């Protein structure tokens, strides 16, 4: 056993338990909703592949449906990798290209129509981000339509790293009914993926939201997931203050940047705020688990 305080590895010893635990989570929460199946978006990336493998282990291949929702700029290899997951697992899938909707919506928009007051705006980037968000929400909207159509719950595919960093679209890719991998850091997703038997091409490619050509998570974030995860494990799981994490030898500006990102994106991890007027307000002092039903 390793007693150094560092992000714990998912290895051959703890994997069987984590695997069974996550499978039972999916099965138990789906059954409690009175359903037996899930639908999820497959991007060709490692996170949705991991969620998909877990869902099949929990519910069986007949109860998992994948949606592949490419945009015209999506890389061909993403679609191939998504199909690899589908074929490996033998599950049903649908392909729904979202290019028409997105292009129609943005047809009269140019970079000149960007909102200049956006603090993060640099030339050309706002429209790109808006398009990326719109794509994520379009996919969510299709998933929820299929959720109703197939009488299935939407399975989430966001990992703990991106949820903490706010590296996701509110009501887009972060939306789901249940998420088996939301408490697992990206670094650990790679370890999990090895044990799940996810195709190597998916494990080995650099992480990307694939919202535009050549997009890379790590160059956009400005640090690697490995660094971020080591830092976030200490900040979040171990509740070390940023100055303590820095004193352990982590780069000051990265620690501060990550801590700032986590705080700034808190709204993405919570339900909308409700103004309290009555004596008993939803989620403030009207408090029940979702499983209450």
């Amino acid at each position, binding site marked *: 056993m390793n007693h150094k305080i560092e992000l714990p590895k998912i290895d051959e010893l703890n994997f069987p338990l984590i695997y069974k635990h996550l499978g039972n989570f999916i099965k138990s929460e789906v059954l409690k909703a009175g359903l037996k199946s899930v639908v999820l978006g497959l991007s060709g990336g490692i996170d949705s592949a991991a969620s998909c493998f877990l869902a099949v282990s929990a519910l069986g291949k007949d109860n998992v449906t994948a949606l592949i929702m490419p945009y015209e700029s999506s890389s061909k290899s993403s679609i191939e990798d998504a199909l690899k997951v589908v074929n490996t697992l033998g599950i049903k899938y649908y392909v729904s290209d979202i290019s028409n909707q997105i292009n129609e919506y943005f047809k009269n928009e140019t970079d000149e129509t960007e909102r200049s007051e956006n603090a993060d705006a640099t030339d050309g980037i706002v429209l790109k981000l808006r398009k990326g968000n719109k794509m994520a929400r379009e996919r969510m909207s299709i998933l929820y339509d299929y959720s109703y159509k197939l009488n299935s719950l939407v399975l989430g595919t966001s990992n703990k790293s991106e949820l903490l960093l706010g590296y996701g679209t509110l009501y887009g890719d972060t939306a789901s009914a249940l998420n088996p991998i939301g408490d697992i850091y990206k670094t650990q997703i790679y370890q999990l993926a090895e044990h799940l038997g996810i195709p190597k091409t998916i494990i080995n490619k650099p992480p990307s939201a694939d919202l535009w050509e050549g997009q890379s998570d790590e160059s956009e974030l400005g640090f690697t997931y490995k660094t971020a995860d080591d830092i976030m494990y200490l900040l979040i799981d171990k509740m070390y203050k940023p100055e303590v994490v820095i004193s352990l030898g982590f780069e000051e500006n990265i620690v501060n940047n990550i801590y700032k990102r986590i705080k700034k994106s808190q709204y993405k991890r919570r339900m909308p705020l409700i103004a309290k007027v009555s004596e008993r307000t939803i989620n403030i002092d009207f408090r029940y*688990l979702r499983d*209450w039903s």
Partner: protein
Amino acid sequence: MINKSNSRINVCLAQTDPKMGDLEKNIENHINIISSAKNKGAEIVIFPELSLTGYFLKDSVYDLGVDINSDEAAVFQPLYKISEELNITVIAGFVEKDADFNFYNSTFCVSNGKLINVHRKVYLPTYGMFEELRYFKQGDGFDVFDLNGVKISVLTCEDAWHLSSSYIAVNKGAHIIIINSASPARGITAGLNKFNSTNMWEELLSVIAFYYKCYVIYVNRVGFEDGIGFSGGSCVINPSGNIESKMDYIEAEEIITELNLNLLNNERFKTPLLRDENLNLTLKELESIIDNNKVK
């Protein structure tokens, strides 16, 4: 009936997955388990903490409270009845409401149709993911009760994390400490095939059993409540500190295991820690600690 002269007891550990907020369904499940345990020779059936209601109850504590000393106790009548019919002892967890409308995280022991003990959880975790003090009132002691000559004490989950609880129980004469719990699975470590929380529990249970020279019966629940999974792993630890029976960390199941109370005799003779325990010294020190704290 437990017969101390042969010093053996058959105990059923019922590692269940209670249905959140559904007393009726849970009672039905308890009855099924009790009947089948009896068929396999069990004399006591032990269920987890809040086995009749589920754990993260939040506001539904208000709806589930039962005053066990009033007419409301009728809801548990089927359990009393089966206990009497089958001549068996049942230990199960419920939300207790007292005459003054306080709520407790409680565990009853019904033997041959009669209520013989209610333990109100004393240490109510209210930190991290837990919020028990928001809803429950603390119990005020650790009873030891007699089950046909065998002395038993019930501690509920967090109670056991305070080593003073088991200290009190064994010095009051407990031979068997029953720990019922609803412990969430949390924390992973490379090279460890169980959750960190399970590992902590197993170490703790072994310490209690070995150093207090008693049998420890740990009954934890399984299943999920809003994404939080409970870690099972119910087990029996003998006074040598060894695990005698252990259950799955994930699946609901029951085991029936025989405790050999002769081992208490053997262990307490070989390592007479309890005999040598200086209660007066402890009392003197505790009084001085309390006095000193007052001055501050």
